[in-house]
């Protein structure tokens, strides 16, 4: 990776440190007292937790990114050493990057792969000029693809760098197509090779990450509830313990629990209990006063329902069992109260536009029971498909009113024990998961007598077979949940907005020594942030200036130099833009460390601009030497700031309140000062 330095574009005139020295400095600054502090720092809380999940092979779900990064950390932990030396930084004095790299967080891994992707693409582009299809060429090309998929695999934000690399590769490919010295076949080969390395390989690797992830975490854990019943059943322990050995096909007489597929606000099961709807609601509307039907987020004996054939009396499964199929008319009998699931033209308690769902109680007041439901298997393959445990997603359509059984998402008031409201949706405006249910627990009912049946309901279901989902199905479901899981947009003490990042108007306190005031902050080296920002602005200005002048056929730069200038800008300034601007559109809680990938690209741009100014804008030797000395002054200034802020980066020294106050250069920095 350090070979990146050797590219003519980046080597600066004044800092002629050799590669070895740089590596040494980089390693030193990052590994310095790495074992310190021996306490959990900030998000290490979460990531450490995830790692221990890996160690215990427990399933978990994190909305921020795919599992690769977590796995990598776990691997690092597993090998007993922390892999902290991957972050290379030319300047070697960037406080924020050091802080972030030293601690066990994902950003540094992401930055590493981002840079690796860009570097190997540049290497590849170079070897493209010399010897296409050579071993080197293939190596760098594949490495680009792999680094990209690793970056995406660490955090979804990596996708922006991937897109950037793809875009640059696309432009290059377009030029290749326009190269008429190449034969058609050769162009085709080039395109296919790129497609394979940059599209197919990353996709496969991404799948591989999930494959390893799902193989590793095969036990149920705290995040099971978010996933579908089928997914849960595929994990060891948890639901699988219950569902194993259940009969697959639901038959007349089956005892089932019905889980809502949508499961928001919380996953829950169709439920009923002895209490009835209040005669009159608080707002004066009336109800049917029949038995409540709700959705209940906990396992309970009242979640059991019996599927009954309307034409026959018994509540047990006949021998042989008669399976229920798509389109069949069924009745659902509540196991503990033996009342029938019913809906009628009465407004639901909280959603007056929908129908109330109740368990029918015959008050003999000319309100007949309407308890026939048509089974509609949503994910059926044929129209005669059998209702399957866990696998079938069904809608229950009321025969009389064509209302669909639906979880409205509202919490009932105290009279409904704060359980969730279930309604009959009359105007079914298309498919929505809140109307879809699946059987989770299932057994063939054997007891005709109510007393025996109650006993049967209380006893756990038998088990003998396990039912496994294919990898692709599990992958797709997990992927979908990861992308759609909503993190609560709670504000955090150290959260910040993207606008604060460029000017470093924010900091994150990572750790405070329990007794002294030694502390670790994520805080940038303000000189470097400012100059990196400046470099970006200068680059943009110069770029447009040159572009406009070239348009008028005034060529300030030789062609090769211009192309390098554009490429460097596209990768570095582009890398900054794609890693920064999308945050403006995101609605989640943002922290300063989200900016670090962008910052890395910005810092890469800095030497490019310095070099350019020295080579092309400082015409006279005098100017050049003045500029050189300015750079040296700037560099020592950066070093000085680094040194000053060092206690906050390493947290190795306890500072007096006075010193801390002196370090608080900006009012917005949250430096913790103990009150004694």
């Amino acid at each position, binding site marked *: 990776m350090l070979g990146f330095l050797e590219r003519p574009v980046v080597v600066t005139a004044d800092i002629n440190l050799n590669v070895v020295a740089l590596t040494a400095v980089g390693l030193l600054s990052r590994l310095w007292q790495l074992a310190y502090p021996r306490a959990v720092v900030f998000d290490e809380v979460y990531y450490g937790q995830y790692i221990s999940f890996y160690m215990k092979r427990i399933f978990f779900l994190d909305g921020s990114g795919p599992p690769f990064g977590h796995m990598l950390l776990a691997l690092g932990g597993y090998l007993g050493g922390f892999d902290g030396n991957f972050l290379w930084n030319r300047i070697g004095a960037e406080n924020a990057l050091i802080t972030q790299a030293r601690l066990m967080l994902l950003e540094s891994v992401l930055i590493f792969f981002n840079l690796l992707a860009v570097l190997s693409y540049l290497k590849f582009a170079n070897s493209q000029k010399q010897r296409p299809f050579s071993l080197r060429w293939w190596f760098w090309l594949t490495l680009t693809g792999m680094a990209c998929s690793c970056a995406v695999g660490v955090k979804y934000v990596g996708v922006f760098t991937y897109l950037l690399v793809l875009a640059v590769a696309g432009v290059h490919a377009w030029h290749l197509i326009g190269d008429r010295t190449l034969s*058609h076949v050769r*162009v085709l080969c080039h395109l296919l090779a790129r497609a394979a390395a940059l599209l197919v390989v990353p996709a496969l690797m991404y799948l591989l990450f999930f494959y390893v992830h799902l193989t590793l975490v095969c036990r149920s854990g705290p995040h099971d509830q978010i996933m579908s019943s089928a997914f849960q059943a595929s994990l060891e322990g948890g639901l699988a313990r219950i569902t194993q050995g259940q009969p697959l096909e639901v038959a007349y007489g089956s005892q089932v629990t019905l889980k809502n597929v949508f499961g928001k606000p919380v996953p829950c099961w169709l439920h009923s209990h002895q209490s009835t709807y209040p005669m009159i609601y608080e707002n004066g509307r009336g109800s049917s006063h029949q038995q409540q039907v709700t959705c209940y987020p906990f396992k309970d004996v009242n979640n059991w329902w019996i599927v009954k054939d309307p034409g026959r009396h018994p509540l047990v499964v006949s021998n042989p069992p008669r399976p229920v199929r798509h389109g069949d008319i069924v009745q659902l009998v509540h196991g503990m109260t033996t009342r029938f699931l019913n809906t009628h033209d009465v407004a639901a308690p909280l959603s007056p536009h929908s129908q109330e769902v109740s368990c029918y109680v015959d008050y003999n007041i000319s309100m007949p029971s309407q308890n026939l439901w048509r089974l509609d298997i949503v994910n059926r393959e044929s129209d005669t498909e059998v209702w399957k445990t866990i696998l079938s997603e069904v809608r229950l359509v009321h025969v009389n009113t064509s209302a669909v059984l639906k979880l409205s*998402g509202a919490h009932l008031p105290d009279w409904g024990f704060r359980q969730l409201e279930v309604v009959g949706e009359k105007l079914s405006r*298309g498919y*929505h998961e*809140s109307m879809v249910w699946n059987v989770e627990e299932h057994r063939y009912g054997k007891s005709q007598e109510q007393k025996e049946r109650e006993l049967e309901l209380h006893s756990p279901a038998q088990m003998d077979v396990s039912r496994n989902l294919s990898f692709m199905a599990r992958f797709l479901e997990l992927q979908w949940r990861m992308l759609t899981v909503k993190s609560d947009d*709670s504000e955090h003490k150290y959260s910040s907005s993207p606008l604060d990042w460029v000017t470093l108007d924010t900091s994150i306190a990572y750790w405070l020594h329990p007794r002294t005031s030694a502390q670790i902050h994520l805080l940038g080296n303000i000189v470097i942030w400012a100059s990196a920002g400046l470099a970006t602005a200068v680059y943009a200005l110069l770029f447009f200036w040159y572009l406009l002048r070239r348009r*008028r056929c005034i060529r300030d730069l030789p062609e090769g130099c211009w192309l390098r200038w554009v490429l460097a800008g596209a990768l570095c300034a582009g890398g900054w833009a794609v890693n920064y601007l999308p945050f403006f559109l995101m609605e989640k809680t943002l922290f300063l460390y989200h900016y670090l990938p962008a910052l890395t690209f910005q810092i890469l741009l800095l030497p490019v601009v310095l070099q350019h100014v020295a080579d092309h804008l400082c015409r006279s030797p005098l100017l050049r030497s003045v500029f050189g000395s300015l750079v040296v002054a700037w560099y020592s200034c950066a070093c000085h700031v680094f040194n000053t802020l060092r206690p906050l980066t390493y947290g190795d020294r306890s500072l007096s309140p006075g010193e801390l106050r002196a370090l608080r250069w900006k009012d917005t920095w949250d430096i913790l000062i103990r009150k004694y």
Partner: protein
Amino acid sequence: MLCATSRLLAARTATALPAQPRGRGPGARCRRRELHFPGHPEVPLGEFLAGRLARSSVSASRRAILRRGRMPPAVGGGPAGSELRPRRGRCGPQVTRAVGPDVAAEPAARSPKRPARGSRRFEAAGRWALLALVTLLSFATRFHRLDEPPHICWDETHFGKMGSYYINRTFFFDVHPPLGKMLIGLAGYLSGYDGTFLFQKPGDKYEHHNYMGMRGFCAFLGSLLVPFAYLTVLELSRSLPAALLSAALLTFDTGCLTLSQYILLDPILMFFIMAAMLSMVKYNSCADRPFSAPWWFWLSLTGINLAGALGVKFVGLFIILQVGWNTISDLWHLFGDLSLSVVTVGKHLTARVLCLIVLPLTLYTATYAVHFMVLNKSGPGDGFFSSAFQARLSGNNLHNASIPEHLAYGSVITVKKLRMAIGYLHSHRHLYPEGIGARQQQVTTYLHKDYNNLWIIKKHNTNADPLDPSFPVEFVRHGDIIRLEHKETSRNLHSHYHEAPLTRKHYQVTGYGINGTGDSNDFWRIEVVNRKFGNRIKVLRSRIRLIHLVTGCVLGSSGKVLPKWGWEQLEVTCTPYLKETLNSIWNVEDHINPKLPNISLDVLHPTFPEILLESHMVMIRGNNGLKPKDNEFTSKPWHWPINYQGLRFSGINDTDFRVYLLGNPVVWWLNLLSIVLYVLLGSIIAIAVQRGAHLPAEVEGLSQVLLQGGGQLLLGWMLHYFPFFLMGRILYFHHYFPAMLFSSMLTGILWDTVLQLCAWSLASPFLARGMYAAGLLSLLLGTAYSFYLFHPLAYGMVGPLAQDPRSPMAGLRWLESWDF
């Protein structure tokens, strides 16, 4: 058809021309103007040829107008088309089509196709007649049964109501800019509607109220979409059949038809979008005559229409992006043209800045000026706006009011959240329920004026009545420690380390104490934002924060709605995060203190820019507030192009008069197919060109139309469609219609090109002509027939629903998700 084939033949005949020497020269301008018409199918070939032949002697300095396109081949012997390569397909395709090395053109075809002067006039008349026919058909379909149903349909309840507000001059709030509703109001006013109809809910009968003026106005604008599309496509492709096809697609689309027939913003919005597109394309055609009268006319018309589009809905921003992109690339080419001096380029730039930025902004601002001038009475929108804003509205209690200026101890005040649409600090005699923090009196914010919003400012350490005349007046100053006592219940504003009811990370705020005696948790430090300690606190103008003394948290409101027990008022919390956000800033609105002199509130009168800014802030907040609910079915952007599900405009049951907004599936699916086909064909051609493949002249011309004209339309479609994927607000099916207009125009161009390409590949001209005509006719007739099938969707259905075999629509429910 005739025109098309004549052009086809003209193209072939013209190919025998000698190669064009390349260069610059003074003759160019007139030549280009000539060339402009030669492109037209109806232009006589003779004159066209004459023009071209005369040109071959043009001197060497004539590259001026050829700003666009690839560099011409290095040698002068290249095809003349390279020199004449057009700016984005304005007229060039025909030129390039007309020239080329294909010398095999049949001279035999030449003589019969040379039209006389009379026939030229005849063709021009024919062209006008065709336009008239298209327009007429469009008006006929849109105005047919416009009065049906005579009750409120769908969003008419909003926009009709807002039209009435303009007529009654009462102030209201809406998330869209005012122009569309103002026009509706104007149309109603002019047609004699008196603004008395209440527009309460969909389904209400209009009875004697005159609603036809407003519907007629919308239908009028909606009808104009078709001729606009026709002219745009004609301008882009120079092909009458393509234009005709696009116009037919739009005329026969039940969705466009339905959307144009009611009092809605969409016909107005689409009118401005299409008008802007048309004038942009027209102005592109004038590019060879910069600064001429038509050039200025179309340029400024573009600007005016942009202002219109943005003034109706913020979606108008997308067409602004399109015009902006077009302008930038245009300027870029002008700038690259070395024959133009920098000063000339500067003039071009200035003209565009004037017409496309300054003019639209002025007009847009002017609509707001009119809006605020017309709506000068207090109405339902007051509460959304700040106190200063409300003081403008007659009928509002802040209008012409006078109150004491500086806060003093003993003053009775109301405290309003600075953030809009949150309301006043409020408390009432109800406790927080069991299990939610401490069981003390609730404190909320409430949007409406109420006695329970009144608070008394007291000193933190004494309970003496400061209004006692024996005490001197003591002003409250920035940094003072105060106590706020609720006037009705005599409880103090209080906070403590219990979590707030909804925002768990904040502290709970309650009313505590008896008759003003509480504890030290009732003490708050009052601070004015951006002022020095010790300053007095001004009514309305001071932005204040209340900081809880014991916990150090700031009084704020999360904007979350409390459940039933809190009467669905908004949550008030004390936030430990001290960042200065609008959530924690308040101002004092009402102020009663008999010991202080009153001053007039006119000093507060906000300036026009302030009002403008504030109303935009409120609109943006309103738009962001329209979030979809989790457990409801919502329309997703990917549903739209496949016509997945429509919208019920009127009626549900089989006895109702039902109108269902749904695109004509034949048209929509053809559009969808065309986009895919276009992308495929476009990439193939682009790659072929990039590989240096030598296209025959005919194909070259067609591909120019396809890539440039079609490209603009594809861009329009993408700009009006893809941004919706990023929007968090609730979306509806009708949001797709602007994009659908572009997609229909693209379909017209694509199929015309594809048919011409097929025809070209056939050897015999007779067969070619036949197949072209047959293809076009089948498309036109197919669309018309599908309209015949689906027209009840738009014009209304009564009787059984479509799943019933007795229904007139039986068998037409091609997708399960269509519920008509």
